[in-house]
């Protein structure tokens, strides 16, 4: 297929000050891509479990490094954020909550919820 390279380019996103909904929207996409890449780590962990107690212990040692732990909790927060904004996408799919006040209020609610869920997980798993 011949492509016309003289076509006008899309407006450059960088020149706009994105509203909160816009920032959250692109964050949803970025966390989605990140979490997809993170699935490789899930496969690594489940293989370590399947590999017997030695590989399991080695995996636990690696996962207890502070940098890895930090990345791990970053992933947990990304998961909860993606989940909360995903719920809002489902509400949008039902044709609801498109007016401006609701948009901003829901944005704050989902940011708060993902933070609370992450902290709750942190508290419940640190026995």
């Amino acid at each position, binding site marked *: 297929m011949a492509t016309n390279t003289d076509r006008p380019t899309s407006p450059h996103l960088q020149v706009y000050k994105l509203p909160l909904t816009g920032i959250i929207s692109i964050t949803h996409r970025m966390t989605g891509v990140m979490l997809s890449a993170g699935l490789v780590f899930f496969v690594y962990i489940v293989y370590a*479990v399947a590999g*017997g107690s030695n590989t399991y212990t080695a995996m636990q040692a690696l996962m*207890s490094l502070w940098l890895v732990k930090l990345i791990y909790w970053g992933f947990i927060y990304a998961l909860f954020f993606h989940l909360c904004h*995903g719920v809002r996408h*489902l509400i949008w799919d039902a044709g609801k909550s498109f007016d401006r006040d609701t948009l901003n209020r829901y944005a704050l609610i989902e940011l708060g919820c993902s933070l609370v869920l992450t902290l709750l997980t942190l508290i419940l798993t640190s026995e």
Partner: protein
Amino acid sequence: MDYRSPLARVRGLGSAKAGTSHWWMQRVTAVALIPLSYWLITFLNLSLNAPYQHTVEWLATPLNTLCIVAWVLAVFYHAALGLQVVIEDYIAAEGVKIVAVWTVNLSFLLLALAALIAVFRTLLIG
């Protein structure tokens, strides 16, 4: 899933591609993943902190095996569907786009199979 009426199909109205089904499955897997996330986080928490035997026994409980397997199927499907949209949005060249989508689909199919095999191997041990 095709939501077009037979008449619309005969008249050739609407998209000829699989957009509706793609969109729909993205939502179905999303809804399934909400409750299943509980099992993912429990599994991750045990794997990172619990003694080996404890994690294996947890995974071998029928409900936990079911939910982890369901999570694996739903999440890899959901991820592949989502990445396909991202690729289609940012890659304009038709050839590169097709190769990229196929690479993602095949990679995630492979990863999903690898994860399932690992779960079943764990069950054989424990």
